């Protein structure tokens, strides 16, 4: 019973947002990528920014700076809106 409860509470705390509205210094996982803009999508997947990868947001200003696995990337707000994370 207790285990089940904790499982539920864990699930409710798992938020899915875009990277741009993620809290800084939090670590999560990339859940999916927005596929509408083919150019941005192509760049993201080529650079290895893929669903399932661990992600940490380090900075929101002057640009979005985040870490995926062992690499850091700087992106603008537009691109950060194309990355969905759950944490």
């Amino acid at each position, binding site marked *: 019973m207790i285990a089940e409860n904790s499982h539920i509470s864990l699930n409710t705390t798992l938020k899915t947002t875009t990277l741009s509205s993620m809290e800084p210094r939090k670590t999560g996982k990339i859940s999916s990528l927005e596929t509408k803009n083919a150019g941005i999508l192509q760049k993201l997947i080529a650079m*290895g920014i893929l669903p*399932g990868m661990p992600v940490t947001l380090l900075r929101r200003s*002057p*640009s979005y700076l985040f870490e995926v696995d*062992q*690499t850091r*990337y700087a*992106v603008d707000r537009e691109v950060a809106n194309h990355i969905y994370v759950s944490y």
Partner: protein
Amino acid sequence: MKLPLICPEKECCRGKKECMPGKGLPKIVLVGSPNVGKSSLFNALSGSYTIVSNYPGTSVEISRGKGRIGEREYEFIDTPGMYSLLPVSEEERVSQRLLFEEKAFVCLHVVDARNLRRMLSFTLQLLEAGTPLILVLNMMDEAEERGIEIDIQGLSKALGIPVVGTVSSEGKGIEELKTSIMEFTHKKYERISQETDYGQEIEPYISEAEGLLKTAEETGISKRSLSLLLLQGDRTALDVVCSPEEEYRDKNEKNESRRNSFEEFQRLAETASEKAGIPLSYLFTLKRQEIVNRIVEQVMEVQDTDKETKERETGQKEKTEKREKARKKVLLAENIDSVLTHPLFGIPVLLLVLYLGLYRFVGVFAAGILVDFLENTVFGEHINPLVTAWFTSLVPYPALQDLFVGEYGIFTQAVTYAIALILPIVGAFFLVFSIIEDTGYLPRLGLLLDSMFKKIGLSGRAVIPMVLGFGCSTMATMVTRTLETRRERLISTILLALAIPCSAQLGIILSILSGNPNGLLIWAGVIVLEFVFIGYLAAKILPGEAPTFILEMPPLRIPRLSNIAVKTYSRMHWYFLEVLPLFVLASVLIWIGRLTGLFAIALKTMEYPTVWIGLPSDAADIFLFGFFRRDFGAAGLYGMHDAGLLTGVQLVVAAVTLTLFMPCIAQFMMTIKERGFKMALAISGFIFPSAFLVGFIVNTLLTALGVSL
């Protein structure tokens, strides 16, 4: 930034474009993501030097070199970084085309060991393409510092190809890699099946595309790989398959079939991607990543802090101490990094770098003190009088004396300018520049300035070619290929031609105005204003989407002294060879012009705009020089300032006009190459009048306001 290679053997043409050392030998091609150390490895293997820096996009061209491994000679080929077989930007396409066209003895896929998880996907693509492959895990030291352990043998077994770990900057693992290349035989590592399964929904489409390719010509990559690229709508693949080469023969028939196959592939791609529900490139990447994740889980281990405490307890003291040290190093870099990229502190740090590196070191020290000593004391008092006296006594013809040791003489002007003026300035500049490049500061500057650059239609990525433009706008024009859209490439080319002064020009102007802080501020203000204004205008006028910004941040690194030295030397060497013939040519042309009277006419013509912007008519030759090279014009300005011929206001006006003046011949040629003849002509046609217009405005304003500087 890429310079002509310095070949280890004298027999090879030094720095010529057509230079192809090792032509016809078995080829070893280095490929991989940007900033993983391909060029560094290339240098270690071939014994040549191509520029190595710490930012993605250093190499935008292919470099070739020759080297010996054991008894055999090979041709080594370094390529611009590419993230995957499907290119996004132009320099990636350069590498992709090479893979299509060249038959390699073996390809070295160079990856950053830390980032195996992100980079193995490309290894799978290369295997799928049927490329004979060795995987090189570079920067093993940095991976270790971060507690990453990789089972190299396990990885080799999982992939079915040789895997070697290296630290290319220190030469570690190079011998092992060489052995691996020597032992490489295509049969030994031919795997039964190395194809990724993309799922039963999509596989039929891939097979169908492959079927269409049956009669197509062989390329460097497998038919399956080509089919995948075609389904993703890749331009190069379409070019190859629907090659227009045979258009001359049976024109109609070929064109017809070409269009047919083109449409066929498009139809296939559309239905396949409809079926998949997501873009095919996304699907393919996700499928490959599944395999990569499985492999990585088997062979890679990241030590976390818990484990380390345990290790300490079990008494592996030495190991933990080493790791502790490494962690401190990482932490320090982290702290510096957070200041460099801080929204508030970042800008003061940038200004400090500019002040110390550019103004104090290049402007005041090199262009001021050093040049003064070389130009006035060494050349002016000792060498030139000696050479002049010697030459005049040896050759009694005044016309020839004029050519070699006259006012505009080959020795007294061209050689003196090149050695005493240009060389120390560009040398100092390239030294500062190399240090900045190797720390990894440039990408951070991109991050810092992205939102500002957006206002002029560029992304933070364009910061890199813009900053490189201060070194040499010609090279920077080539680096604009790393920008993603045509619009960005065009805007940055215009700005490079218009508002970015090159190192020699900048150094001279800084030095001339260093005694005059207000003048320096006005000059800088006008140039920045013009830069922003033209950029803003171009962004408004030119059609196209706003740019987006994605840039990889390499770790901050401590520059390696040997690389700094070799890089600075090779750039100075290149610059000197570039500049000297043109200076000499200018001397000869002026000499002919003076003999025939054409020089006087040209000077007279240039006098009109010169006087119009409030300068004495003598200053006309600065601008005439400027047509040859901007730095030549700046050298002329230096001469006039030295002779005390200009007032403070005139100096500022001349500096502004000259900074905004025509790009040099080399940059003009590069603009033609990258953007086309019409565009190059249009840019230059705009610059010439606008430079004088701005000079006129500045002069009118300063005079009207009664400013004296």
